[in-house]
């Protein structure tokens, strides 16, 4: 899987927020709001409960009064408009008091194994005051302005998996409702969205007795924004088996669809509906980043051509895919993949069960492997790059976040192992002329141990390694971000530079109160 293709991924029905909503709908989850204590200045706390067949989860929300000048999306910020933790169960007053002392501090506080995530969100300055004021005045906000931004708040981090003392993934991964990747994080964001919509109504109501609630249709069109930078980029490199399983599920889904001999009339109609929605969404998708602007132009033209494709009677989906491989841009091909998956839930939704990973099981090295076999793996996996590495991934002492710097002797001692292609080339140099087994080689060359591990993983998991140079001058970190975010189900991917993006989650999705009475999937048919 190459970086430019990964940087064109769209969300699919296998994306994790879609998985979450389908499961909760299928299992008839109940939702409530046992606590909602918001003062006139917008500060206070709330609890949103989600109750499944066996367990309950609760989003504990804290709203703060943040002056505009203190608001920053950077991970190094220290204050936020709202802060959250997803509690495992139903919290007591003592739990709320403990969380009230820690959650608002985010990284500077501590949570416990009773918490599954820690998160925070900031208001959209462009929208927040406008919406509060218009609602307080008894009117609805301007739909065009809402559509332009797409969210009232954006999260700037959603930490799970043992961060800051929270429960480790390994301790919850055997729960069916959390077995798919990132379900606790997606539940967190979905409940944040509900809280934010309630909060803005409450603030308008406090301001004026004439206030009205946000129109349900406008509310529905709002997602939760997210700002993400380089900090997320290493994840796919650090979780090779997981990456493999995500890509393999997409590929398996596509293969199943292409293998269909015929397409039922209703499936074709559903595909056509999805294409129509995708065209609408592509028209509404805004970005000012030159790369994304070009991609959007390609996408809009490509979707028009997909809409006009004349399907043959026999193996129609295979035909459109093969046509698309030659006729469409990468952006268009990836949109086509998402569109093909959309009407085929019965055929492929079970693949979600293959998308988790046990990285531990792939950790041991097979020291009995012959070095000739290792060389084979390296040769077929890693294409020699052009010239020396231009970049170094490092962690800066002042920000404690991954950074990408110019390669050179100053930064070299701090290089993180995030350029597997470069490490593989170094390994190949030291393997030249060696015979024998991996175990003996690693006694002499422990510095290649992490690279040998990766090579053995990729021999078993063909999509585990990105086929590209993450130390190249041409690297666009946003390609890594987009690939990961597409698996979350993010839409409206809007790069703000080569290194950070804004996206939207759950835009158009049902709210907790709607899920029982509407489809878990139809809102998302148009992918981008």
């Amino acid at each position, binding site marked *: 899987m190459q970086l430019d293709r990964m940087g064109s991924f769209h969300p699919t029905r296998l994306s994790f927020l879609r998985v979450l909503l389908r499961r909760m709908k299928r299992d008839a989850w109940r939702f409530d709001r046992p606590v909602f204590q918001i003062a006139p200045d917008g500060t206070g706390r709330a609890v949103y409960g989600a109750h499944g067949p066996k367990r309950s989860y609760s989003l504990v929300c804290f709203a703060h009064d943040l002056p505009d000048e203190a608001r920053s999306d950077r991970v190094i910020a220290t204050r936020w408009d709202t802060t959250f933790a997803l509690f495992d169960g139903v919290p007591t007053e003592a739990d709320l008091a403990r969380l009230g002392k820690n959650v608002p501090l985010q990284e500077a506080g501590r949570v416990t194994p009773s918490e599954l995530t820690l998160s925070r969100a900031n208001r959209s300055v462009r929208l927040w005051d406008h919406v509060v004021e218009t609602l307080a005045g008894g009117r609805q906000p301007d739909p065009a302005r809402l559509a332009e931004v797409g969210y009232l708040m954006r999260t700037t981090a959603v930490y799970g*998996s043992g961060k800051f003392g929270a429960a*480790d993934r390994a301790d919850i991964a055997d729960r069916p409702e959390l077995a798919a990747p990132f379900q606790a994080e997606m539940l967190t964001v979905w409940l944040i969205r509900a809280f934010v919509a309630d909060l803005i109504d409450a603030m308008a109501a406090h301001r004026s007795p004439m206030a009205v609630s946000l129109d349900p249709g406008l509310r529905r069109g709002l997602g939760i924004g997210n700002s993400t*930078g380089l900090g997320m980029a290493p994840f796919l490199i650090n979780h090779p088996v997981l990456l493999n399983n995500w890509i393999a599920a997409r590929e398996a889904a596509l293969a199943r669809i292409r293998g269909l001999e015929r397409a039922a009339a209703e499936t074709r109609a559903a595909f056509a509906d999805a294409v129509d929605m995708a065209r609408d969404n592509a028209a509404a998708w805004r970005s000012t980043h030159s790369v994304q602007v070009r991609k959007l132009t390609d996408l809009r033209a490509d979707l028009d051509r997909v809409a006009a494709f004349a399907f043959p009677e026999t193996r129609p989906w295979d035909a459109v895919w093969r046509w698309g491989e030659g006729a469409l841009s990468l952006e268009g091909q990836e949109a086509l993949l998402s569109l093909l998956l959309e009407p085929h839930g019965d055929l492929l939704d079970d693949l979600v069960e293959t998308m988790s990973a046990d990285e531990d099981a792939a950790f041991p090295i097979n020291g009995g492997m012959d070095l000739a076999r290792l060389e084979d793996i390296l040769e077929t996996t890693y294409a020699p790059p052009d010239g020396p590495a231009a970049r170094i991934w490092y*962690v800066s002492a*002042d920000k404690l*976040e991954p*950074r990408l710097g110019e390669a050179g002797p100053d930064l070299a001692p701090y290089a993180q192992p995030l350029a597997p292609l470069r490490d593989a080339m170094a390994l190949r140099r030291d393997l030249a002329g060696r015979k024998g087994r991996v175990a003996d080689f690693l*006694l002499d060359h*422990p510095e290649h*141990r992490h690279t040998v591990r990766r090579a053995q993983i990729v021999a078993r998991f063909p999509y585990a390694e990105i086929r590209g140079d993450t130390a190249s001058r041409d690297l666009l970190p946003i390609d890594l971000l987009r690939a990961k975010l597409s698996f979350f189900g993010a839409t409206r991917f809007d790069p703000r530079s080569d290194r950070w993006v804004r996206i939207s989650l759950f835009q158009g999705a049902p709210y907790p109160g709607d899920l029982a009475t509407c489809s878990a999937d139809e809102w998302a048919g148009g992918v981008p």
Partner: protein
Amino acid sequence: MILSGGEIEALCRKAARGGGMPWGLAEESGRAVRWLEARGLAGADALVEVLGRARPRPPRNEGSVWMADCPIFLGATLTDRASEIAPRGADIRVLMGAILLLPALARIARHQSLMLAWPGGRGFLGRREVWLDGEVPEGLIRARPGNLRSGVKLLRVPPRALPQGALEALTALAQRTYAPAHLGQDGGAGAGRTDND
């Protein structure tokens, strides 16, 4: 401060790297300490001792005894040979931090359960079980295939605080992996001042 398993692993991986280990052995260090601490064993203290004193020289096999000063390197060397060692067992001698060998031997025990013996103590490693009778000392440890359990079965323990001294030492070592601020290059890693919209 109570750390999650993931935090312990990440801290120890960075500390081991900061202490001079190559990345692959640093990864082994993180896993090993996480595994030990999850079972109530003092892995963090042992890693601090090792990082302070051991030179990561390659283990050697002398007179059929595997020996090394670094238990992480030795453990990795043994697990790399898991398919040979599991059916026959091994004699192992490490100079410090012997408890850090246990996670590696437990990995070998996934192939074949192992009985352990050392002067004054015994243990058992099954596919999913760990039994210990006495502390694991520096010195000769004999691992043999077998099913005889001895000692006390170790249960997984809830996350607990690392000893303050170990936490501080590991944190200081981990910081050596961070590039000093003056080397930082403002690469636009995230939103800047213009994000407030």
